[in-house]
C-alpha cells in the first residue's frame, strides 16, 4: 500500500530513512515505552541489573527483544523504535550518536566521524 504523506500525495520513499509514523508508533509502543522509562535512574539500574527481567516487564515483541539483545539499532527501528527514545537505551550502553550512526551505516566510528567532518570541508562559514 502506498503511503500518503502530509500533503495527501503519494510520497517517494527516502533511501535509508524510516518515517516514524502512526504504523511505527503503534508497532513500537512497548519498545519506546521501555526506553522512556530510562528517564528514571532507578529504571536504568534495574535494566543493568537484570536485562531479561526488565524486557519482560514491558512486553516487548520477540522482534524488539531480539533487536535489543543484539544491540541492533536498525532492527529496533524496524520494530518501531524511535531514535529519541532509543537514545536513552544507547546511553545505558555508553553509546553516543556517532557510535549509533556507525552501527547503522556499517562504518567504524572513526569512519563515521570522518564522514561527518568531510561534509564540512570547503564550506564558507558565516
Amino acid at each position, binding site marked *: 500500500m502506498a503511503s500518503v504523506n502530509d500533503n495527501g500525495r503519494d510520497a517517494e520513499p527516502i533511501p535509508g530513512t524510516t518515517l516514524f509514523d502512526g504504523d511505527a508508533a503503534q508497532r513500537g509502543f512497548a519498545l519506546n515505552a521501555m526506553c522512556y522509562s530510562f528517564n528514571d535512574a532507578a529504571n536504568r539500574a534495574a535494566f543493568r541489573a537484570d536485562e531479561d527481567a526488565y524486557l519482560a516487564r514491558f512486553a516487548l515483541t520477540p522482534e524488539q527483544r531480539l533487536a535489543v539483545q543484539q544491540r541492533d539499532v536498525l532492527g529496533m527501528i524496524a520494530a518501531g523504535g524511535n531514535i529519541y527514545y532509543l537514545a536513552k537505551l544507547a546511553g545505558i550502553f555508553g553509546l553516543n550518536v556517532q557510535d549509533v550512526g556507525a552501527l*547503522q551505516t556499517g562504518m567504524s566510528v572513526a569512519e563515521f566521524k570522518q564522514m561527518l567532518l568531510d561534509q*564540512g570541508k570547503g564550506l564558507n562559514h558565516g
Partner: protein
Amino acid sequence: MAEIVGAYFTSHVPAIGGAIHRGDQQEPYWKPFFDGFPRVHEWLAEVKPDVAVVFNNDHGLNFFLDKLPTFAVGAADRYDNADEGWGLPLYKSFAGHAALSWHIIEQLVHDEFDVTTCQKMTVDHALSIPFELAWPGVEEWPVRIVPIAINTVQHPLPSAKRCLALGRSVHRALAGWQGDERIVVIGTGGLSHQLDGARAGFMNPDYDRFCLDNLSRDPDALTAHSIHDIVRLSGTQGVEILNWIAARGALGPGAHEIHRNYHIPISNTAAATLLLEPA
C-alpha cells in the same frame, strides 16, 4: 506597549552542553561554532529582553507517545529540566510568564489553532542549550519564558505552512499584549541532520543555506516543501526547522538579518546560529 526586539535561532545539539560543561569552547572542534556567539551576547546586551517566547520540541522528557500534542503551549510560572535518561547534566529551571502564556493561548485558539495548554511542563535540552549559549554562566536566566512545543517526533507532523501561520498568530498575540515587556522570540534545533537509519549522518548545506537565506526575507518560501520533502532534504531530525519557521512567524511581517553562523559538523548536525531584527 510590549516590544518584540528580535529573534534568536540556534541548534540544540546535546553535545554542545557537554562542551560547555568541559570548557571546550576554544578547542578546534568547537571553536567555529562557539565563535558565532560573541555577537549574540553583544546583541542581547543591547536589546535587553526580559521575556522569551521559545519554539522547541520535546525529546521524550515531558511527552510520551501515549499523549503527543501537535502544538503545546506552556502556561506555568516555572519550568524545570529533569533527567533525560542519557547522561546530560541537569539544567537550571526557568521562570515562566503564565499571564502572557494565556494571552497567547487565547489568540491561538481564536485563530483556530487548537493547542494543548500545559500548566505543568518539563523542558529539555532543546530549551536549556540555546539559553546556556546565549547567557553563559548566569546564575538565573534574565528572561521569563513562554515555551511552545511543536511535535517533530511522530508523523504526521504539522506542515511548514501551518507552523509559520502558528507563529504569525503568536505575533498577533504579542503585538496586542498590553505589558511593557521586551520580548525575544527564539527558535531552536536543526539544521539538517539525521540520527537514524542507514542514511544516518546525512546533512545538506544547500538546503540549510536556502533556509537561512529565506528566513529573513521570504519565510513563505520555506513552506513550499511538504514534511516529506523536508525530511528528504534535511534529514529525519532536520524537521526541527519547523521551530525556526514558527519563530520567524512570531517575529512579525518583516525582518532583516544581523548575524549568521553556520558550521558542519557539531556531533551529527549542521549547526547554525541566526539573529533577526524586525524590519
